[in-house]
């Protein structure tokens, strides 16, 4: 144990970061069930498969390309060269990959029930391999971040503060989804002669399960974002909890007891707290979550009913809008006079939010636009009518029920 104790801090950091990584990995099961519950039965299998395949493809893409873009480390070499610090860098890769993999999982919820499998997965490869890492490199990574954030600090007095990715992960994912959704168009029958005809979801227990898995895993997402055990902060944990509570209570109040708004309200709160969870007051976190739920409820209805955008899970308001709100909220509730820890600039945050918005929408249009040209994005009418399960996976979610009589 003599030797052991010396490398204990390093072993511990691996353990710590790995706990976070596995927790975020589990969030992907959450994404899968959230979507499976929110689509119709005939698209449940597709929802589940998209997410699990996504994670795998993102793993490859980020290992081979993305991580070296953002963090200037290449892993294509003998194992002996990867074992420095007991493989700490590899675990860091695992942890950060889990963020990268969220981008496509977020998009998935927006484009559900009508998108082809191949272009969807191809997009996932580029999202985790290129699109996300470039933005990561700018805000968090080792490549451009020092210079860029230095410049931001010079202009606004503080760098863009995004502790756990309200903007870098959720904002980015949510706004990349928008062009994909627009390029696809609404599901058949969603808007008939300009009138909205809501399509009922299949399974609220699945949705609730997905939401719970996401909530639990999110504590890895936020807490372990300190990346070093010695920097762990109880404030981050409790702020995450308070924002969840705010989001849920907001879902009850603004969503009138609606189970969809309540379970997604928790996620809205969590999206919004990521950026400032290390600096705001727990009471501030509660308010951030409450407002996030308000934003989600109102913007979701506006998006669906007024703008007539068929964003099935509401990922643009949930991740997109609330990601930006989270970034800006850190610049408000992080201030000392609102009982935050300070050291953050409202204008830098606003700048970060706008930057995220612009980068995401442009990147999304280019990526999905190109894929639309090259492979087409959308299932044929008949395939969509049959359901993605049958037309892509040749089986439905409950085979026994189909075959029996």
């Amino acid at each position: 144990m003599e030797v052991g104790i010396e490398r204990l801090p390093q072993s511990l950091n691996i353990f710590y970061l790995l706990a976070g990584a596995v927790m975020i990995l589990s969030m992907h099961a959450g994404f899968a069930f959230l979507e499976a519950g929110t689509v119709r039965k005939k698209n449940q299998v597709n929802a589940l498969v998209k997410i699990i395949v996504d994670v795998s493809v993102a793993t490859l893409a980020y290992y081979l390309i993305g991580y070296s873009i953002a963090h200037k480390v290449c892993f294509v070499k003998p194992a002996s060269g990867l074992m420095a610090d007991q493989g700490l860098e590899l675990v860091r890769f695992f942890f950060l990959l889990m963020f990268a993999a969220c981008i496509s999982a977020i998009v998935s919820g927006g484009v559900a029930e009508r998108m082809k499998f191949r272009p969807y997965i191809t997009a996932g490869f580029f999202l985790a391999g290129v699109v996300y890492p470039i933005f990561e490199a700018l805000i968090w990574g080792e490549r451009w971040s020092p210079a860029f954030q230095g410049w931001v600090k010079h202009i606004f007095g503080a760098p863009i503060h995004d502790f756990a990715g309200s903007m870098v992960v959720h904002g980015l994912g949510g706004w990349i989804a928008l062009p994909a959704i627009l390029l696809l168009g609404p599901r058949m029958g969603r808007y008939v002669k300009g009138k909205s005809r809501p399509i009922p979801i299949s399974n609220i227990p699945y949705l609730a399960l997905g939401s719970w898995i996401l909530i639990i895993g999110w504590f890895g997402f936020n807490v372990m974002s300190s990346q070093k055990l010695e920097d762990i902060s109880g404030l981050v944990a409790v702020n995450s909890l308070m924002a969840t509570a705010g989001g849920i209570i907001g879902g009850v109040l603004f969503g009138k007891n609606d189970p969809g708004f309540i379970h997604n309200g928790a996620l809205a709160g969590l999206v919004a707290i990521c950026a400032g969870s290390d600096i705001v007051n727990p009471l501030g976190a509660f308010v951030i979550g409450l407002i996030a739920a308000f934003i989600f409820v109102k913007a979701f209805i506006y998006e669906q009913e007024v703008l007539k955008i068929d964003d099935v899970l509401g990922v643009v308001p949930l991740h997109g809008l609330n990601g930006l709100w989270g970034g800006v909220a850190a610049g408000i509730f992080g201030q000392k006079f609102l009982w935050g820890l300070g050291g953050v600039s409202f204008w830098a945050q606003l700048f970060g939010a706008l930057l995220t918005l612009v980068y995401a929408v442009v990147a999304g249009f280019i990526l999905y636009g190109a894929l639309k040209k090259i492979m087409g994005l959308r299932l044929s009418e008949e395939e969509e009518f049959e359901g993605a399960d049958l037309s892509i996976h040749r089986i439905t979610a409950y085979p026994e029920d189909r075959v029996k009589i």
Partner: protein
Amino acid sequence: MKKIEAIIKPFKLEEVKDALTEVGVHGLTVSEVKGFGRQKGHTELYRGAEYVVDFIPKVKIEVVVPDSLAEKVVETIVNAARTGRIGDGKVFVIPVEDAVRIRTGERGENAI
């Protein structure tokens, strides 16, 4: 023989079944159906969107009886299924020309 088809409220099934057994019915067949009629459906609300649920869950009872028993059976069902509120349902009487018991091959009234 007649086939008596009754569309009733689901929670009345037990009572109707018991009443029919009492008047000498030995077999019947039920199925889940949805009804549309004077009884209004309701709306459900999810994430701000309204779904109109027009079709109301009902239970259909089918029972084939000898002509002699038909009227009795109709009355029994009507009495047992009545709540007096809209949506109580209907009973229809349909002619049946023949019946067979699969197990034995018996025909006609013996088969039911």
